C-alpha cells in the first residue's frame, strides 16, 4: 500500500538526490558546450570531491575544531579538486586532442576515468566513508509526521539552486560569460576578436570539474562513500544532460529533478528497478526528442 507519507518521503529523497545529480550534470553539460568533449571522467571529480571533503571532515573532527568548519572545507575541497585534478587534466591531456576525432576524445577521457578510479582506491581504500558532522549539526525537521534532515531538505537543494542561478547570471550578464558564449558559438571567430580561447577552455573545464566535485562534497554529508560511485554518477549525469539536451544548463536542472524523483519513487515502490528508472526516462525522452528536451535545432553540414 502506498501511503501519502511514502510518496512524500520519495519526493524529498528525489529532491536531494536530484540536486546532487544536477551539480555533476551541469558541469558535464557546461564542459560539453564549450569544449565539445564529453568528459567520461566527470563522475570521478564527483567521487574525488566527496573523498577529499570527507578527509577534511575527519581531520577537522580529529583536530577538535568546530564542526561548522566542514562547510567551508567542502567548498575548499571542491575548488582544490577542480583546479588541481581538473586543471592538470586539461593542460596535460585534453588540450592535445581537441582537433581529433570524437571517438579518440571519448577514449582518452575513458582512459583517464580508469586511472582515476584506481587512484581513488589507492588513496582512500575500499572501506566505505561516512561523515555525519554536517548532517548532525542542522538536525531534522518534521513534515507531515516524517522526520527529515534539514541538510538534505534545505542545504543540498539550496546549493544547487544557488549554483544554477549564479551560472545563469555569469553566462548571461558578465563579460566572462559573454566570452565563454562567444567561444562556444565559434572558437575561431572569438579568437580572431582577441579572445584567448585556450584560457577559456581551461577555465571552463576547471569550473565544470569544481561544480561536480562540490556535488560530491555535498553528497559526502548525506551518503556513505564507496568505490565505484564515480562510474554510476558519470552515466547518470550523462543521462540527465542528454535528457535535457547537451549544453543546456537550465534544462539540466529540470531533467535532474525528473530523474531524481523518478528514481526515488522507484526505490520505495520497486527497489529492484531503481537503476532502471533514470534510463527509462532518458530513453522515453530521446525517443520523441532525439536531441533532448531543451535542444535547439542544428543545421547539418554536407
Amino acid at each position: 500500500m502506498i501511503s501519502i507519507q511514502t510518496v512524500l518521503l520519495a519526493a524529498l529523497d528525489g529532491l536531494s538526490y536530484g540536486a546532487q545529480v544536477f551539480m555533476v550534470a551541469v558541469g558535464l553539460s557546461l564542459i560539453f558546450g564549450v569544449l565539445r568533449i564529453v568528459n567520461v571522467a566527470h563522475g570521478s571529480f564527483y567521487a574525488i570531491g566527496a573523498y577529499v571533503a570527507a578527509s577534511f571532515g575527519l581531520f577537522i573532527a580529529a583536530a577538535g575544531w568546530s564542526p561548522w568548519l566542514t562547510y567551508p572545507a567542502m567548498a575548499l575541497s571542491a575548488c582544490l579538486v577542480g583546479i588541481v585534478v581538473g586543471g592538470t587534466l586539461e593542460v596535460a591531456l585534453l588540450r592535445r586532442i581537441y582537433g581529433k576525432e570524437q571517438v579518440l576524445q571519448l577514449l582518452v577521457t575513458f582512459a583517464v576515468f580508469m586511472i582515476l578510479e584506481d587512484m581513488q582506491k589507492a588513496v582512500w581504500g575500499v572501506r566505505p566513508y561516512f561523515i555525519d558532522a554536517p548532517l548532525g549539526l542542522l538536525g531534522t525537521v518534521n513534515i507531515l509526521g516524517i522526520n527529515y534532515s534539514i541538510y538534505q531538505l534545505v542545504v543540498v537543494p539550496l546549493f544547487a539552486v544557488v549554483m544554477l542561478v549564479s551560472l545563469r547570471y555569469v553566462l548571461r550578464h558578465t563579460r566572462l560569460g559573454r566570452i565563454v558564449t562567444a567561444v562556444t558559438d565559434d572558437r575561431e571567430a572569438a579568437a580572431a576578436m582577441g579572445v584567448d580561447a585556450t584560457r577559456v577552455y581551461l577555465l571552463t573545464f576547471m569550473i565544470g570539474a569544481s561544480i561536480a566535485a562540490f556535488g560530491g562534497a555535498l553528497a559526502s554529508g548525506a551518503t556513505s562513500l564507496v568505490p565505484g560511485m564515480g562510474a554510476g554518477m558519470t552515466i547518470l549525469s550523462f543521462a540527465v544532460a542528454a535528457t535535457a539536451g547537451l549544453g543546456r544548463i537550465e534544462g539540466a536542472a529540470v531533467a535532474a529533478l525528473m530523474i531524481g524523483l523518478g528514481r526515488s519513487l522507484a526505490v520505495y515502490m520497486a527497489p529492484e528497478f531503481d537503476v532502471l528508472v533514470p534510463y527509462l526516462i532518458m530513453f522515453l525522452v530521446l525517443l520523441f526528442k532525439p536531441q533532448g528536451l531543451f535542444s535547439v535545432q542544428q543545421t547539418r553540414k554536407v
Partner: protein
Amino acid sequence: MRPEILLGGAAAFVLAIVPALVPWTAVMLTIALAIGLSVLGIVVLLRAGQVSFGHGLYYATGAYTVAFLVSARLSLDALILIPLGGLVATLIALAFGVFAVRYRDIFFAMINLAISMVAFALLEKLYHITGGGDGMNVARPTLGGVRLGRAAFEGWMFYTTLATVAIASFLVGRYLDSPLGRALEAVKSNETRLEYLGVSGNRVLHVGYAISAALAGISGAIIAIVNGHVAPEFAYWVRSGEFVFIAILGGAGNVVGAFAGSIVFEVIRNHAAAFAADYWQTILGLSLIVIIMFAPDGLTQLRFIRRKAQS
C-alpha cells in the same frame, strides 16, 4: 584482403600447434581468442567511427544464455550452445538497435554504456533468477556429442574456438569488403553523402551493430563454457572498456589485429595480475593514452610502417 587471409591462416596454423606442444596454454589461448571475438565486434563498429562502451552487455547475454540453458538441464551440446548465445545477443541488439543506431559518437557510446550498466545492476539484483553477485555455475556440456574429461575438453574447446574464430574472421572480412560493409566507412567519413546515394546510414549501422553483438554473444558463450561460471561483472563497464582497449591496441579496423591484440592482452594480464592487480586499470588507461597519442593505428601499424618504408 589476400595478404590478410594468408597472414591469418599462418597465424591460425601456428596457434593450432602451440597447445599441442605446451598444454597449459590451451585455456589461456581459448580465452584470448574468445575475447578476440568481442573485440572483432568493436572493430566492426569502429569501421563506422563508432565506439560502444557497453558491449559487455552482449558478452554477458551470450554467457548468461548458456548458463540458463545448461541449468535448465536441456543437455544441449556446446556446439549448439555457442551459436545460441550469439543468436540471443543478436536478437537483443536488433531490438535495442532500433533505438541506439539513431545516435552517433558520444550518444552512441554513452547509451550503450547506460544500457549495459542497467543490465549489470539487474543481473546483480534479481538474485532468485540470476544468482545475484555470485553468478551462476555452468556444468560442463558435451562437445560434439561426446562427454569429455577436463583436460580433453579444454583441448578440444581450444580447437572449437579456433575454428569459430577462423570462420568468424573470414565472414567478417567478407562483410567488411561487401558494399554493406563499405557503407560503414561512409557512415564514418560522411553520412549525409551516403544518404544522398539513397542508403540509410541508420540501417547500415544497425546491421553492423547486430553483427558486432553476435560476435560478442558467441564470445561470451565460449567463455561461459570454458570458465564454467558466469557473473554480473561480464556486463560491467570495465569489461566493455577492455574490449575497446584491445581493439585500439590491435589497430582499429583490423581483423587480424583484434586477435593479435587480445592474445598480447591476455598474456600481459596473466602476468600483471600477480604483481599489479590493484593498478590494472591504471596500466590499461595509461597505455591507451600512449597508443592514442603516439600510435593511433595500434600495434599492427608497425607492419604497415615497414611496408611504407620499402615502397
